[in-house]
């Protein structure tokens, strides 16, 4: 599986506006390079990130997901990241119970000053997901869903 | 280790002035994490003079359990056989004490003292008070023994003696 060197994972990053988005901006202004596989979706706060969005990402073909926000105590909204952290603890626990591969969701705290941490995070996550291979297990069921679903509707 | 060297333990320690290293200094030696300083600690008399009176723990702002640490260091010193001369009578006393408990289930004070004297060759010690102790009814000539002495043997076999064999 990991020998599949042609495999380019699709990874979506869900980040907060105030820390990680700004941190990724700093990666840019510092001209640090990272893999193109990751695309950033901006949220006001990690507290806003809906767990269903992560599920939908996998269903629609993502191989990995990054969720990142402000370090504890640095949240622009004081406690959004704390709420998010709890939600993730619960989410991970449920996913693990259901047998979803939780290694494919990488959580992180990246501050507005951690441009290089963001680059490292992206590169490491891409490497990790590449080693895990495509999330075929999930996507297979997703494809099945589409066919079955439409059939039923028809 | 959380010690920030305020020194409050040393300030309140009743035997700090008799120790090679007072408690706070000892904490600092441990904090460095070097083998060299660990050896210094194990070979010091501080760990043997500590009375476990717990004044230091009671007052420590960081709630560091120094007495417990001393317990550990003493076990370690015995294990590594790095013993300060001051430890000899103290260990001898403790061993004699435990021997008595192992054999009878209770402490046999005369037996303890005799055994201690054999261990230390300090035959003259306390000769002065023994007769008056006897006269005041404070010494039993025969040991009191509990019935279930087998369980004592088992407890000792599974704890302290077990630990010794492991160490060998």
């Amino acid at each position, binding site marked *: 599986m990991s020998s599949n060197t042609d495999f380019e994972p699709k990874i979506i990053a869900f980040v907060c506006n105030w820390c990680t988005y700004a941190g990724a901006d700093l990666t840019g202004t510092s001209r640090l390079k990272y893999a193109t596989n990751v695309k950033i979706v901006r949220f006001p706060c990690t507290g806003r990130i809906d767990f269903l969005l992560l599920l939908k990402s996998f269903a629609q073909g993502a191989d990995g997901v990054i969720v990142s926000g402000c370090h504890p105590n640095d949240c622009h909204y004081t406690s959004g990241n704390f709420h998010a952290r709890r939600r993730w603890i619960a989410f991970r626990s449920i996913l693990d119970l259901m047998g979803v591969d939780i290694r494919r969701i990488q959580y992180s705290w990246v501050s507005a000053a951690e441009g290089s941490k963001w680059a490292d995070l992206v590169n490491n996550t891409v490497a990790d997901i590449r080693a895990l291979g495509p999330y075929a297990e999930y996507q297979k069921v997703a494809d099945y869903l589409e066919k079955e679903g439409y059939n039923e509707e028809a | 280790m959380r010690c920030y060297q305020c020194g409050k333990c040393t300030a309140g320690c*009743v*035997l700090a002035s*008799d120790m090679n290293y007072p408690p706070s200094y000892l904490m600092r030696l441990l904090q460095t994490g070097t083998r060299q300083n660990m050896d210094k600690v194990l070979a010091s008399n501080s760990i043997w*003079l500590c*009375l*476990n*009176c*717990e*004044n230091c*723990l*009671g007052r420590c702002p960081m709630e560091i359990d120094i007495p417990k640490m001393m*317990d550990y260091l*003493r*076990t370690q010193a*015995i294990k590594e056989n790095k013993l300060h001369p001051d430890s000899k*009578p*103290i*260990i*001898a*006393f*403790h*061993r004699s*004490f*435990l021997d*008595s*408990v192992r054999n009878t*289930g*209770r*402490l046999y*004070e005369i037996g*303890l*003292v005799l055994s*201690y004297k054999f261990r230390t060759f300090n035959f003259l*010690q*306390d000769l*002065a*008070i023994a007769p*008056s*102790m006897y006269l*005041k*009814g*404070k*010494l*039993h000539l025969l040991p*009191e023994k*509990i*019935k*279930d002495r087998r*369980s*004592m043997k*088992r*407890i*000792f076999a*599974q*704890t*302290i003696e077990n*630990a010794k064999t492991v160490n060998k």
Partner: protein
Amino acid sequence: MKIGFYPGCSLTGSSREYNESVVALAKALDIELVEIKDWNCCGATAAHVMNEELSLSLPARIMAMAEEQGLTEVVVPCAACYNRLKVTQHELEDENKRTRVIEILKLPYRGDLKIINVLQMLEAYGAENIKTRVTRPFAHKVACYYGCLLVRPHSILKFDRVEDPQSMDTLIKGIGGTTLDWAFKTECCGAGFSVSRTDLVAKLSGNILKDAADRSAEAVIVACPLCQSNLDMRRGAINKTLKNPIDIPVIYITQAIGLALGIGAKELGLKRHFVTVEL
């Protein structure tokens, strides 16, 4: 009132008078003491210094026996035993340690036994009777000496105040005595070094006695056989380290209260002290 009783080794030997006074006082206060059958030594400092599992197993056996014999509350007059039992109970709240100790003991152990010291027993079950039965008020100025093992570690024992404790003072005041505000209430007397490092005991106990004497105490009141024997039996060695020899007696709280209730000096074991008691 019926209550479990663990005398411990000292009370059967070098500190017989403590035992005698506890028993005599309990009788006078209508408290029935039920001695734990076939009790063993708590291991004292020796076990604690030499091996942790041993230091937990010995007290655990005592408590397991008490539980087995249907006792729910046990009074432990010796401060050292009291401390070992309480600390063991606390340590055995840890699942792993408890399992291991039960395995060694081959006895069931619940850990819900209530362990109290003599002061707690007198406070809880004797206070009223003492008040009404005092026949010979204890009109003396004394220094109450608590030592280490009765009050520390506070987080586990949860007894009295950690510095400047008051419970013994309250009892003494209750029988008409005056107590000193002094500095060495909870300083260490040298405890288990009595035999192995008599020199250090002489020094530490000397400091204690000197402060009490400086403040003109007529006696030192204690609730621990180790403290008593160091301050009393080792007086010769102590006085050698001091400029002026000190002759104030060291008596147990149970003896002091016993005297106030009119119990005889012999019954209270006062004749067994090295320093003559004339109170």
